[in-house]
């Protein structure tokens, strides 16, 4: 399934969390089954539907089967273990989950995975590598454009799009067109500086 396996031999922190969540889910399903087993269970509720989809993730062809309810963000993080894209609010208000879908910046938390069928997805993992940073990644490092770093993958994906869309002409325009990415540490002045630096390199 995922070709990025955890690099630790021992159980990873993420693995423990996933195990814990799965355990809780089993408990809740059992509880629900008892309730639904009663006489009231007459309505024809839709059953879970799983569908096969094909995605191009960071240039790699991937085939997987997803629950129709899965968001692209959850498929990236849980099924494909590409955990660079972050889940902040999960309601399209913070921008931490921003990815590029066919080159367009998109909120992966409000995109159903089935809707990404056949599309090219670029995540922060596909932008650059530790040895070969994208100009925007380099600019964030150079300008100290983050503190806790949680919003940073979304900020960087959005910053790249801000420039390619042609909306990085002035500080005011950068602020307006980066407004869908919140930073609770308020590194905003440095983020604007980083986008300006990367603009010079990406356009030059």
């Amino acid at each position, binding site marked *: 399934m995922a070709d990025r396996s955890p690099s630790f031999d021992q159980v990873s922190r993420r693995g423990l969390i996933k195990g814990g969540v799965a355990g809780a889910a089993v408990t809740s399903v059992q509880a629900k089954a008892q309730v639904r087993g009663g006489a009231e269970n007459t309505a024809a509720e839709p059953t879970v539907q799983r569908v096969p989809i094909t995605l191009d993730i960071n240039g790699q062809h991937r085939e997987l089967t997803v629950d129709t309810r899965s968001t692209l963000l959850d498929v990236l993080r849980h099924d494909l273990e590409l955990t660079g894209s972050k889940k902040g609010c999960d309601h399209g208000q913070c921008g931490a989950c921003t990815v590029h879908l066919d080159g367009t910046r*998109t909120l992966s938390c409000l995109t159903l995975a089935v809707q990404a069928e056949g599309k090219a997805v670029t995540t922060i993992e596909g932008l650059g590598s530790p040895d070969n940073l994208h100009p925007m990644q380099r600019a964030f490092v150079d300008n100290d454009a983050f503190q806790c770093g949680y919003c940073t993958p979304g900020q960087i994906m959005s910053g790249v799009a801000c420039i390619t869309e042609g909306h990085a002409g002035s500080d005011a325009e950068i602020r307006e067109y980066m407004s869908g990415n919140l930073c609770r540490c308020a590194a905003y002045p440095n983020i604007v500086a980083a986008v300006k630096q990367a603009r010079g390199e990406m356009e030059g």
Partner: protein
Amino acid sequence: MRPFHYDKPATATDAVTNFRPGAQYFAGGTTMVDLMKLDVMKPARLIDISGLEKGRYDFIKWSGKSLRIGALTPMTKLADDDKVRARVPMLSDALWLAASPQIRNMARIGGNVLQRTRCPYFRDTSYEQCNKRKPGSGCAALDGGVTRHHAVLGTSDKCIATYPGDFAQALVALDAVVEILGEDGPRSLRFADLHVLPEARPDRETTLAPSDLIIAFSIEDADFPRSKYLKIRDRESYAYALASTASALRMDGNTIADVRLGLGGVATTPWRAREAEAALRGGPATEAQFARAADIAFAGASTTDENAFKVELGKRTMVRSLLETARMEG
């Protein structure tokens, strides 16, 4: 999120003819997926219309001074269209001042006009009372709720939820027409007749049947280079309007030959200030006249202690929008 069945019909006709009760159309999903996660919307079936007929409903077409826009046009595309910006800036303003760049890339203009209110008591199912979400259950906002963002125009004793959008104010001001594909074939509807006041049934927000699919908006006379959308909000960007005005002017010398006014952030539906327009037509474009028209526009306001400020803010927003529009080149 509750389980649902996912369909992706190839054509608009397939989408409408195969529609079943309990289904919902969706394209960008920015409202739908959000409200499904909150358990406010519970469709048994989602009909994905985003790719219908390979972009057939994603277009911006001018024919003389008439403009026709496909319902699946992304907000971004219409906001950034050079000709729209030059000939009817109000339409572009109302889009780029809304939401965030990511949401504008995803959301299509057909769904945009049908977005649901941001009333916290509608969005949070832990509140038992919401006549919009659960008909007959009462209104937590009117029953001692926090109402700073709620509407002052078009309210009822059942609901004071604000219509959240921006683009619709421009459409209602421009006398837009909605083109619909329904079970009985194509038909059209004045945009002004799309949304309905909450009155006794706030759960009914539009005159559309569940299977009706919006396929385009048309504006017979969209040539309003002297027009703008002014939006006032708590933060500079990425927030819903506390008050907004879509204003357009046509001048004959110093006399107002035509004026259009759509008000946002203050009403339960996209709000056309027709009486204020009538008071301005044929008169001079002065601040005193604009202030008099604003008084008329808000004469019927109904307020709570917390949202009473919106009457003064709404009036000032309207006056400023008209003053700035008058200074534009027409």
